[in-house]
């Protein structure tokens, strides 16, 4: 218990140190909450994953978790496809509005959040080490304010590699507790980002203007640090705490158009219980601790309940419910998730409900 408390103190120290730091970029509160990678399993658990970090998603959430990986996994096909709920509404409304075309037809997307996202992230993780290749594409359109349209356009391509290394102080001795540390490195190429169009751009939007807004590829490097503390209360029950500082100091891409990545400091606690062939995990994270954001948007709760072949998830991402259902055949994993994310700077202003399908194949 004493070492659990002293480990918690060390984690708190990392959190406080990071909380004093400021991102290198004066990102608007919405931009500052955009993350490089949001894993399907993590999002099903309300994005409360820093202390859990027990699979390939540890590479992006908390590299210290790589120290707990017990067998090697190569995910050669690992893809997420997601859309926003408004796309269905917008498609139906578009047909009706454009049957009777008028200036008002352009208002069909007003108040709607259109979002499309796909990624392909093959990865290899083994004890202490992980490597992933990232291919990510996002498209987004958010229009608000009928009097003076505020149009936020998102077009972003991010490709790169992510490496991670984690080690535990118990050196695999499976002692009652283990304090782990990890660090990560990423090299990324990015084109585009999220832009609020000026009136001039709105009235003159065409392909050339879009190309000018989005710009070309830039590249940048980033570093992550993480720590994780595991306390095995019994053979079935373990308590976990974790903290991670990803994209320390932010990642810039060397040009004016590729959106920089702000640093993200997170900390979390979780409880994991195994019984028979079942397991349950409850987790809580506080994310974006180092950023000036609505405090309600920092909180994440998640739960995972696993039986052979199936996983059921629920959680609260910020203040919005998440649900997930997973099917795991070993070589193939399917996971369907719904979650919502705040798209403005304040809770309950503009939540965007998303639907995600994850397909994983590996061995």
């Amino acid at each position, binding site marked *: 218990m004493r070492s659990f408390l002293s480990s918690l103190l060390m984690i708190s120290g990392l959190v406080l140190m990071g909380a004093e730091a400021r991102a290198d970029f004066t990102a*608007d*509160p919405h931009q500052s909450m955009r993350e490089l990678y949001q894993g399907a399993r993590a999002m099903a658990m309300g994005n409360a994953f820093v202390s859990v970090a027990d699979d390939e998603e540890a590479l992006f959430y908390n590299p210290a978790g790589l120290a707990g990986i017990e067998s090697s996994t190569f995910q050669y096909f690992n893809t997420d496809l997601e859309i926003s709920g408004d796309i269905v509404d917008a498609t139906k409304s578009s047909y009706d509005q454009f049957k009777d075309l*008028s*200036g*008002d*037809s*352009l*208002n069909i997307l*007003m*108040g709607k959040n259109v979002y499309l996202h796909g990624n392909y992230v093959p990865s290899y993780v083994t004890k202490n080490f992980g490597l992933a290749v990232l291919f990510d594409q996002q498209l987004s359109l958010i229009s*608000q*304010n*009928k*009097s*003076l*349209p*505020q149009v936020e356009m998102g077009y972003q391509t991010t490709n790169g590699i992510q490496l991670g290394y984690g080690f535990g102080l118990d050196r695999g001795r499976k002692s009652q507790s283990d304090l782990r540390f990890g660090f990560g490195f990423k090299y990324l190429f990015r084109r585009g980002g999220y832009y609020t169009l*000026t*009136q*001039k751009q709105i*009235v*003159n939007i065409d392909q050339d203007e879009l190309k000018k807004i989005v710009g070309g590829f830039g590249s940048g490097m980033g570093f992550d640090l993480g720590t994780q503390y595991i306390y095995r209360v019994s053979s079935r029950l373990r308590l976990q705490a974790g903290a991670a500082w990803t994209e320390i100091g932010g990642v810039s891409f060397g040009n004016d158009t590729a959106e920089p990545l702000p640093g993200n400091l997170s900390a979390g606690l979780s409880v994991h219980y195994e019984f028979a062939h079942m397991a349950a995990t409850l987790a809580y994270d506080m994310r974006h601790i180092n950023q*000036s*954001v*609505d*405090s*309600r948007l920092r*909180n994440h709760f998640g739960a995972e309940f696993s039986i052979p072949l199936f996983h059921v998830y629920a959680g*609260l991402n910020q*203040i919005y419910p998440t649900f997930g259902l997973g099917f795991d055949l070993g070589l193939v994993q399917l996971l369907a998730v719904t979650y919502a994310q705040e798209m*403005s*700077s*304040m*809770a*309950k*202003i*503009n939540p965007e409900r998303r639907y995600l399908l994850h397909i994983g194949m590996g061995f």
Partner: protein
Amino acid sequence: MSGCGAPSPDGSTELGKRQIIDQANKALTTEDCATALDLLLPVYNSANSDNEIRMMTASAYACWANINYFKVMGDMVVNAGSLSSGFFNYASKLFPSKIGADHVAEGSLLSQDALMATTNSGIPILPSGSINAGSYNVGSIYPFDRTDDSNLYLLFTSLAGIGSLQNRYGNPDANFHPQAKLPWSTPANVSTDGCGYASSVLNFVDAINAAQNILPSGLKSSLGTVATTLATALDQACDFGCTGGNPGLPGWQVSGCGFASGCTTDHKCPKTLRNRNSCKAQTTDVNSCAAAGLVNMVNVSPLGWQ
């Protein structure tokens, strides 16, 4: 957790200002003009006001003026051909209004104030060229002092001012032709609404000229024609108002003003008439005289509202 009392945003911080703007945008998406204005005015009327707050406040006032941006823009593109031949008629059609029944005119005039305060950074504004001097939102009468976005939006809000005031005072028929002359045709009768009308007309012409490089091609040429035709006619009308002359048009009311050299040395409408609060309703006031001349032109000229 979500019900633990939503914090009230603090407009003096960047985060708070962003939250206010986001809330206002949400309200204006559903055309809830009152909520948007209630959110924005405390920041607008404070030292924390900036161009983003001014544009947002302009849009909240424009909401009261029934400006649905895409609808108006789309309508103007579709009717581009008839803009140059029946501009004043078109303005009445777009912005119906009745005194005491709506806030279209008020919204448009206050929106113009906010837009004229949306200036490029580092611009020196002399008192002679300023609007609402001493406030937290000092405007400039010169379009080149203002941002591109504010000049573009001024096109819409000034059009709303013209149309709504014409509807309130000109009693248009079903085809939007006037059934009564606008009452501000002598300096003594140039009320605040009359001065607001004259300033809206001039601001509209200024906005077209300033936004020429920004407008979509469908509108650029037709609005350009409107601006060129009107600018000349307006300057002549202002000059007749200031000199007390008569162009010989039936129904023209001589102003009684005595500025022998005209309103300005180059015989144009006074720049200061862009300020809707600049008229004193006297024959010794150049802005009132110019405004009276302008209104006479609208009332009786074939280029006016017929």
